[in-house]
């Protein structure tokens, strides 16, 4: 159904600051005036919302030509493919009621219809690209506003089903790889710091998930009172540079005080991934996180960061099954396929020659 090479985000591209920032996402929540929110809408109304939104885009001169995926008609595996690529949430993939996801051909832009709000516009970019993602999401917002009337309140701004999104409807987030802050036991301080700055921090893949492989999603909590541009500027120019500098300082400290251990860990990770014959998803993500860390420290050659980004998606269950449709689908076969994929991907990875001198 989808080609991973079509993905601008996951096709192994490196973005700016990609040693720390995995991906950047900007999301705008919008609702149509004259309709109940999704949680109170019946199936007839929800279907009408999908038709109206798709019709508005089709009639626009600036139609972004999205491919539409109707959740009700997708197989469970196809829905999981969208989840694993961070295009839709688990909740959206598995909820009841009519819902549809529009995805641009490069998969950098998605429009979810009937998630928690009627419309969730989201732009995804590799690395730190807040401005670019914001511009892409805003452009789609403007195309939609040409033909749709959004629920807007003079005091509360754009109205949303949950008041935590009201005002701008804007959530800007960055998926950060913070292995050194974890190793240096700085995460409690990070947690306190982000709370002070009115930010939300979560594990990989959003709400309720665990921080696999040292990946954390940080996003703005406050959506009301500031303009969308002010929220994105603060996030991109004040908050993220500070967290990036902190992680880099921790990496520097780790490398200068525990270089021999760091090299040993990198060599062991390469060894395991080059030789293991069975590998579970969580273990793969944890080990890929460590490989990513070692590449960022300059301890591994023969493998690019972008390749690790691609693998983080490719080792997940639905992607494995999709890539090798002929393979058996029991758990052991899946673990075997995953290990095989990783052995191939890591075949040329070695510990950097100069790094063995400590």
């Amino acid at each position, binding site marked *: 159904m989808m080609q991973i090479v079509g993905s601008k985000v996951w096709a192994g591209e490196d973005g700016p600051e990609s040693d720390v920032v995995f991906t950047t996402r900007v999301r705008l929540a919008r609702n149509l005036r004259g309709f109940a929110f999704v949680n*109170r809408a019946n199936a007839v109304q929800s279907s009408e919302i999908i038709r109206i939104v798709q019709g508005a885009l089709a009639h626009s001169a600036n139609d972004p030509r999205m491919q539409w995926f109707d959740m009700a008609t997708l197989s469970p595996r196809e829905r999981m493919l969208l989840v694993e690529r961070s295009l839709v949430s688990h909740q959206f993939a598995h909820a009841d009621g009519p819902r549809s996801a529009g995805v641009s051909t490069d998969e950098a832009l998605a429009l979810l219809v009937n998630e928690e709000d009627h419309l969730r516009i989201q732009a995804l970019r590799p690395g730190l690209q807040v401005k670019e993602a914001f511009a892409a999401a805003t452009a789609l917002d403007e195309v939609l506003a040409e033909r749709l009337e959004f629920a807007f309140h003079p005091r509360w701004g754009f109205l949303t089903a949950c008041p935590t999104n009201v005002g701008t409807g804007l959530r800007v987030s960055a998926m950060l790889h913070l292995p050194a802050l974890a190793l240096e036991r700085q995460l409690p301080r990070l947690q306190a710091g982000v709370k002070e700055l009115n930010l939300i921090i979560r594990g990989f893949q959003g709400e309720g998930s665990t921080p696999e492989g040292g990946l954390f999603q940080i996003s703005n909590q406050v959506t009301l009172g*500031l303009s969308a541009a*002010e929220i994105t500027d603060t996030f991109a120019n004040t908050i993220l540079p500070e967290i990036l500098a902190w992680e880099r300082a921790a990496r520097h400290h780790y490398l200068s005080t525990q270089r021999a251990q760091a090299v040993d860990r990198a060599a062991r990770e390469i060894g395991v991934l080059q030789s293991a014959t069975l590998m579970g998803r969580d273990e793969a993500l944890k080990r890929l996180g460590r490989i990513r860390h070692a590449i960022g420290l300059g301890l591994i050659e023969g493998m690019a960061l972008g390749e690790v980004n691609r693998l983080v998606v490719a080792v997940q269950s639905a992607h494995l099954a999709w890539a090798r449709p002929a393979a058996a689908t029991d758990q052991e076969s899946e673990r075997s396929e995953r290990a095989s994929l990783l052995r191939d991907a890591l075949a040329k990875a070695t510990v950097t020659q100069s790094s063995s001198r400590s």
Partner: protein
Amino acid sequence: MEHAIEKGHSIPLTQPIAALFASTMKRPAASATNAFCDVCGSTWAHFRKSGRLGCPSCYDTFGDALAAQIILAQRGSVAHGGEAPRQSSCPEGHQLLRSQLLRELDAAVGAEQYERAASIRDRLRTLTGGIDAP
């Protein structure tokens, strides 16, 4: 919790939305407690339980009690400080939606889809009322 963080396990760094509201909530005014939205039927109790409102009109129905919750959840912000949608100064979007609804109403009646026709009529009625009129 710090122990869990260091081990890299699940981190309860944020509370669920409903818990956030429940824990910060002062008792709402009696009028809000008993209120329900006559557009969508949502109640204040439903909002307390789920953290979700039922429709745009709920923002006015639940008035001051809701405003207090929004201000708490938004860390003291009291009003929108960003852009208004383009169509607020240009009613074209409204009219487009209205004419589209009228066409759909005709089609639904023609096809004897009365449930759908009733739902479209409800929406046309809401549009003419205008919840976000100044």
